[in-house]
């Protein structure tokens, strides 16, 4: 059993050896605050969803109708939100009515949600910024796999080298969120060719989407090489060297959704491989300096 445990990277070790060592705390904000992430990446020409508005203060909410003039669909996101909490995908019905998640909303409800974000409901009680950004539509080939919400690709990089990757597909149970802990499906992707290898829902290994029956493996991810390059480019721009990059692949190519300074360990289950051997191999190929 000893050799088997050696494959899996567990959280104590991830924290002590990787996150604490390669992700200095003072650089967390650039990953935790999506508005900072987008600003940094956009500055370096790395594709991100277009930003329509960013709100930091309560009084700014008064100009909401003006900011959304001419925009018929958008996404409201807490800048500091984790796990997809607080994300609202909104479509406009007419000048004063919107639809989101099957409910009809007015300006009041939209402002309420933005106010909640500002007051820190989705960021553990700390005040936060609210972002309104472009609504992305998944690549037409990915649409079939994921009818319940926007799927994304998570690539884990260590010292700017890709280590593991997975496709996260929302389900009915996850209520449209591509978050594995809330019920989304994780599908491991072979780094070399972008072909899916294994899939898990919770701790169960699956082959088909539990809600639609659509076959998940094997499947070739569109724009794969472009996606990986984009992830590496992003990793080069931040001082966090144990990094999770979340990418959405659209018909016009990949876009970076967010960065994660504490990438989860579920990616190992999606790939049915432990990280320790992979990281050890990357280490062997280019040994790390003794100090950072």
């Amino acid at each position, binding site marked *: *059993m000893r*050799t*088997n*445990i050696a*494959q*899996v990277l*567990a*959280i*104590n*070790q991830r924290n*002590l*050896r990787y996150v604490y060592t390669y992700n200095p705390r003072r650089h967390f904000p650039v990953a935790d605050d999506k508005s900072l992430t987008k600003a940094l990446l956009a500055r370096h020409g790395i594709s991100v969803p277009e930003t329509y508005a960013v709100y930091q203060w309560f009084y700014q909410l008064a100009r909401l109708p003006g900011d959304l003039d001419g925009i018929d669909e958008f996404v409201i996101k807490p800048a500091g*939100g*984790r*796990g997809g*909490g*607080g994300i609202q995908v909104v479509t406009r019905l007419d000048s004063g009515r919107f639809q989101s998640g099957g409910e009809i909303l007015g300006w*009041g*409800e939209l402002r*309420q949600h933005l*106010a*909640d974000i500002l*007051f*820190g*409901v*989705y960021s*553990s*009680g700390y005040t936060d910024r609210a972002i309104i950004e472009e609504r992305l539509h998944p690549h037409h080939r990915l649409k079939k796999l994921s009818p319940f919400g926007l799927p994304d690709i998570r690539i884990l990089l260590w010292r700017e080298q890709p280590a593991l990757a997975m496709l996260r597909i929302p389900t009915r149970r996850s209520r449209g969120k591509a978050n594995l*802990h*809330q019920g989304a499906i994780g599908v491991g992707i072979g780094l070399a060719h972008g072909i899916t290898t294994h899939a898990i829902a919770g*701790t169960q*290994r699956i082959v088909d989407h539990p809600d639609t029956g659509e076959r998940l493996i094997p499947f070739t991810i569109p724009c794969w090489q472009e996606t990986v390059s984009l992830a590496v480019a992003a990793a080069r721009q931040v001082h966090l060297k144990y990094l999770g990059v979340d990418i959405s692949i659209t018909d016009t190519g990949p876009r970076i959704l967010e960065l994660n300074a504490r990438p989860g*360990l579920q990616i*190992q*289950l999606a790939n*049915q*491989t*432990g990280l320790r051997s992979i990281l050890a191999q990357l280490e062997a190929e280019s040994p790390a300096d*003794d*100090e950072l």
Partner: protein
Amino acid sequence: MARRNRQIAYTIILIVLLFTPLGLSWYKLFLLDYSFADLIPAVGYRVDLSMQIDGHGSDITLATYLPKTDYRQVVSEEENAAPGFTFSLENQHLNRRATWQAENVTGHRTLRYSYTIRAKHVQYRLPEILPLPSSYPENLSRYLREEEGIQVNDPLIDATLARILGNDRSNMTQILRAIHRYLQDEFANKKFSGFTDALTALKLKEGSCNGKSRLFIALLRRLGIPSRLVGGLILTPGSKRTSHQWIEAYINDQWVPFDTINDHFAELPAHYITLYYGDLSLFRHTTNINFQYQFKILKKLLPKREILAQLDRADYNILDMYGIFEKIGISHNLLKIILMIPFGALVVVFFRNVVGVETFGTFLPALIAAASRETGLLWGLVGFVLVIVTVALLRRLLDWLQLLHSPKMAILLTVVVLIMLSITAISVSYGNIDLAHMTLFPIAILAITAERFAIVATEQGTCKALTITATTAVVIAACYTVMDSLFLQSAVLAFPEILLVLIGLNLWFGKWIGIRLVELIRFRHLIFKDMRP
């Protein structure tokens, strides 16, 4: 290079933290002569006497005997809870009498008196040959007389003595043994709470505790051995409605106990306590009041008070904490809570980093466990769950009303406080004092708990929030168990340097990168993959 320095520093700090306390403790134990055994808490009992009466408009008086601290028992933490009744305590020569009085009593009333008591096991070794003294001091003469119910001079007593002892009446030890065995073996024990005099017990050859005791005394007094009845209680955890009686005989200038119901010869076990001496009734009360009583007995571990006092005076109590805290009026109790919180924190660390459970707030479980000290673990958890449930239900309503975040949290907290107050009021009127102590829950803890739950519920769903509630409850229970340990409390009071060891342990956990138990389960398919055939 810096990494190597860090490693060396870490190792040095760890060694210092683990060995300095050992050195200090060794110093205290061997050079200052602390006795470790004395530090271990002793088994004691919490006795709760409740008396119920029905008044019909007249004046009522109740009296009973309360235990006294003597050579083998220590009474402490006495509490009287008899609203409406005037309470008075009378210290008689041998006994301590409590009286409750009230005028114009109508309706059902409950009176309660509780105390903590610890008793020692005593065993007397009688010499094989012990001659009967020819005379006794004058003040013992009343222990030789005939009394109502103890018919010393009845011919039947003589006849019985002749049968048991024959002619040889020179050896007191032998006499006592013979009579004790006679009563223990040839008289069937009988649970009878009425008055049985010596002769009736003899004639029926069956004995309740008071019947056999009176007979024993009759026989002894006839032989000229001073003896007296003792009334007391056998402390078995639970409820009981009977007291117990045994005797003491005056041997070699000492009163030696004998019980012929449970066969204790010249011995009194640690779970026997003495309530009074003499042929008296445990309770006296006004007639026609439907008097009922019940003893509720709880086993407890109690620190040996003599040691606490000794520590107070010790010179090398490293921090001289007692002096400091006494000066600003902080009780031993509060000091103990403060000293135990690091243990609670260590328990939380273990559950988070080794077992892998999630909790609300890093050290909230330890704080809630500390707050549960007044209420006990059960009601502490009830209070915790109550806060959670209130928040969970109320949150939906408040979300629907669409309020800003901070005022919403304030409303939740205020409602929780209102509910706690209501519960206290209700539980006092039902006589459940334990539950009423829930209002002592520090507001800060309630506030933190309420907000954490609300945020997790909003961010990750109510289901997840309830799961974390359950795991937090488990950790609270674990913290409480450790923090409530009388042994650890006594140890840390005597050896506060133990806290340095705790720091050392946390240092060690700080570098522990083993796989958590929860992860072992979560990644089990990966970990045990190659083991399947």
